[in-house]
């Protein structure tokens, strides 16, 4: 590929598209970390459950996949609520290692459950097919896929919606309070365990939405969530653990850097960029770009 403006712009668009998916993933992860001080290593598996359920709903009912995403996102959100309520809540107050073991167990359970149902139908890979797969906007220099436009609109509508709720409503204030000082939140009359459950549910739903959108632009398997989730971990460390604005900015930045990195260095570098970036940021600014808990 030549180094002309058109391909650079194409690379930038792709960076924004994957970046938006990372934003959704990382926001969910950081929301959960913020209130529960817990890293759910199975975040990538919830993501693939979202993609899988979207395909299942779309194919079995014939609805537009973007409509099917509403169902899959809600379903995985409820799954998240159940996981918090029945899995992580009883572990609160015990050694941190128990939470780590549980989330690793969840990786195996969620992945294999998916593989059990998935592989007979799709063999190795599937992709969510939308009615607009071959439609483009022509923007002079670049052709923009309809799906990219819809993906960006959905991802950013949800991100701004979440930001508005968190920073401009009373329930959002309760969430931020729980994240910043759990004991004080209790003293204010906040039922912090309900906040945990809620945030785990919302975080899981965001992962499912990220997975569904990922499935529109990438082929996927039950195991495809692992690498994006690792990148989302990198992003929330970059952005400052527990910081939603940090996750949003970090995710977008990460997507663009990865896209350009892949373009200039070659595809084999793609997944290494996360760690290079992570190491550099941790050396320069160990607390992340934003402060924790904001």
């Amino acid at each position: 590929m030549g180094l002309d403006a058109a391909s650079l712009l194409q690379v930038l668009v792709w960076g924004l598209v994957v970046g938006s998916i990372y934003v959704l993933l990382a926001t969910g992860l950081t929301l959960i970390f913020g209130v529960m001080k817990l890293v759910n290593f199975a975040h990538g598996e919830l993501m693939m459950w979202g993609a899988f359920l979207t395909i299942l709903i779309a194919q079995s009912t014939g609805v537009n996949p973007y409509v099917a995403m509403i169902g899959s996102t809600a379903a995985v959100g409820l799954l998240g609520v159940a996981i918090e309520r029945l899995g992580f809540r009883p572990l609160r107050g015990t050694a941190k290692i128990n939470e780590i073991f549980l989330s690793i167990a969840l990786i195996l359970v969620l992945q294999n459950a998916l593989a059990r149902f998935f592989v007979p139908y799709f063999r190795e890979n599937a992709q969510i097919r939308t009615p607009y797969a071959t439609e483009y906007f022509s923007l002079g220099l670049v052709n923009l896929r309809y799906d990219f436009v819809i993906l960006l609109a959905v991802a950013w509508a949800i991100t701004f919606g979440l930001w508005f709720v968190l920073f401009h409503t009373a329930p959002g204030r309760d969430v931020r309070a729980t994240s910043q000082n759990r004991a004080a939140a209790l003293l204010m009359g906040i039922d912090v365990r309900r906040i945990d459950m809620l945030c785990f549910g919302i975080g899981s739903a965001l992962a499912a939405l990220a997975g569904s959108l990922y499935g529109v632009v990438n082929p996927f398997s039950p195991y495809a969530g692992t690498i994006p989730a690792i990148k989302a971990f990198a992003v929330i460390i970059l952005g400052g653990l527990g910081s939603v604005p940090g996750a949003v900015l970090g995710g977008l930045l990460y997507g663009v850097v990865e896209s350009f990195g892949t373009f200039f260095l070659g595809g084999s570098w793609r997944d290494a960029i996360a760690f290079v970036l992570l190491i550099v940021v941790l050396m320069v600014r160990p607390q992340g770009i934003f402060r924790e808990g904001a």
Partner: protein
Amino acid sequence: MPRGLDLLAVDDLQVGYGKIQVLWGVSLRLAAGETVAVVGSNGAGKTTLLRSIAGLLPPVAGRVVFRDRVLGRLPAHEIARRGLALVPEGRELFPWMSVHENLLLGGRLCAERLRVAENLEWVYGLFPVLRERRRQSASTLSGGEQQMLAIARALMSNPSVLMLDEPSTGLSPRVVESIFEVIAGLAQRGATILLVEQNVYLALAVADRAYVLERGRLTLEGTGQELIEHAAVRQAYLGVAEG
């Protein structure tokens, strides 16, 4: 003394951290409108007592009765909802929120919005410096301002009992004086206050009665004046407090 009016009664409370027991059967009463102090030296268990009453630490044995209801193992947020507020040791503010948002969180238990607005005016009146700093994030306040914010935040819910854990810690004498003026004012206007202090003179100056807590046990009880005069208190605490 008739005890029907007790707002808060602590009966034989025993509390610990894991295997380490800290409170060994503490009993105290707080009548409506009364200001009671618990004084004691470092590590006596004062913070443990208040955190346990507030529901942040489950008791091993004994009980807390608040407004004629046994709190039992009620979660802390339910206890707060019933009107028991704690200004915790170390202030425990929401560091990355503005003064105003911290206060709104304090007022989230108010049933009506109008009440929140009224209470904001009230606490800004008590601590005018907070009004000046209302847009500033709590982490950027001075120690004294943080303590004022912690008290104001607790007052925002119009609690029926206000518990204060060492509001004088780490503050300059001038700031301590202005904070205790506010506390004394609240007490005079009929607030019910349980005040924990290491600084015995300060505590006894505003309290109607006081208890002395020593290594997890209440060892003395009396009116402020009685305790000041009590030789044991003099020797054990006042000397320390003056030094």
